[in-house]
């Protein structure tokens, strides 16, 4: 089902053109190229540092990793940066560093975000398995070596196939290690069977999932997506994982229209709520 959203992203582009402009960004914005030895390819890191970052040398900030920063004009990075800028300025949320993990060609995301089928129980495959290694072993160490990040407050945010990867990443938690991301926001994913497999594998190794998890779907995607979404939410509620703080919504909109409201509600859940 997730491929549905990959293809309908073209339609989402048209819808995005009808959407509101992202809120103004505060702080400092920069871009850098990052080479990954794991995939032997370049990423484009879009970085937003909070206002007065340089004057607050002793402050460690939450880190928001934004997937699909610029894919098909949906402006996900700009939306997230604008939301954090506004809500932090109003004192609703803490300030945060935002890093959009982009590509010279944003369509390269198809290589990285989707879990392989059948899934590899050793997580040694390509696709999401490999991208998880890129984040864990290359990008996060690089980012945290440069900027004042609180590693216990990493947040992953994705939409569409980016949300597929966000779900996948949540289920990669392997105690006693802390979760790679303490907050996960998955907006409008198609929940393929392989994601249920990764969830089951997690349940077989732990009864804890200490993550603040937010999931959302767009009602206008229809009944096919609803079945998978409801089944996953039901499964998580039945597991009753220790430490899992789950919130979820359905929005009366479509795949492109859900980005802003889901990101805002998700960031409210993971940022304003503090650590689980």
């Amino acid at each position, binding site marked *: 089902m997730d491929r549905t959203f990959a293809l309908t992203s073209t339609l989402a582009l048209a819808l995005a053109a009808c959407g509101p402009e992202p809120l103004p960004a505060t702080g400092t914005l920069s871009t850098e190229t990052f080479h990954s030895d794991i995939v032997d390819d370049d990423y484009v890191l879009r970085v937003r540092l909070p206002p007065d970052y340089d004057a607050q040398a002793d402050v460690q900030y939450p880190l928001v990793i934004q997937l699909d920063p610029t894919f098909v004009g949906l402006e996900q990075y700009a939306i997230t940066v604008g939301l954090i800028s506004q809500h932090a300025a109003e004192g609703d949320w803490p300030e945060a560093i935002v890093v959009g993990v982009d590509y010279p060609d944003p369509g390269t995301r198809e290589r990285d975000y989707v879990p392989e089928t059948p899934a590899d129980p050793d997580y040694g495959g390509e696709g999401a398995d490999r991208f998880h290694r890129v984040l864990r072993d290359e990008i996060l160490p690089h980012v945290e070596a440069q900027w004042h990040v609180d590693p216990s407050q990493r947040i992953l945010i994705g939409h569409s196939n980016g949300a597929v990867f966000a779900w996948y990443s949540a289920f990669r938690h392997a105690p006693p290690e802390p979760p790679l991301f303490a907050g996960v926001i998955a907006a409008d994913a198609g929940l*393929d069977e392989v994601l249920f497999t990764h969830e089951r594998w997690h349940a077989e190794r732990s009864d804890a999932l200490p993550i603040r998890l937010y999931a959302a779907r767009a009602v*206008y*995607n229809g009944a096919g997506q609803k079945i998978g979404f409801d089944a996953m939410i039901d499964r998580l509620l039945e597991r009753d994982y220790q430490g899992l703080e789950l919130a979820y919504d359905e929005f009366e909109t479509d795949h492109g229209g859900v980005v802003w409201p889901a990101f805002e509600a998700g960031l409210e859940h993971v940022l304003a709520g503090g650590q689980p």
Partner: protein
Amino acid sequence: MSAFVLALALLAGPPAPAPAPHVAESGEKDGRLHLQLAGDVLYGIGGQSFLGAQLHLQASTAIWSAGRATGTLDLGVQLQYGNEPTWLAPWLKGVDIEGATHRTQVVLSAGHTFHMGKRRRVQLGTHVYGGLNHWLSSYSLVYPMEDVSGSAKVARSTFVVGGELTIGYRFSRRLGGNLIMGAPFPTRRSSSYVQGLAFVGVGLTIHLR
């Protein structure tokens, strides 16, 4: 007796021809009200590709005429149905999903048509439409390895407004063919998944009156 009937017939002259069921080929603005029924098969994009059909009953009257063209004011009612089957979504191949998305629209239309050519056989019409759109998404899904299965329906009824372009040709007194292209007007409150993004169609037009 038969001679009497024959005499009457001769006195009355030949029977008057029935009025044409289309705009006057002579180009005159005849003041008549014409009726036509168009039926089309459709292909379009909504949440994904859809196939469908449309019936459009339209009343027209000439409002101007020039050397090679007559213009009519048109009012009509249109019924459209579209179906998004899973087999038109190749990315669902391998996913155990059954069902379809259905879209039904009942709208009123208004617009103008140019009837062109020496006998006014070529038509170019532009119309706006507005009415009710009913969207129904109905699917069942099975993930056998993970013991996940279910079925669901999601439906919404909304208002839709859009525009349509029609190109037609009248083959004979009663029958013509047409090509149509149409799309709902996007608004901040509408969604292409629900109201559709655009459609094209081909069909026949019957000139009724």
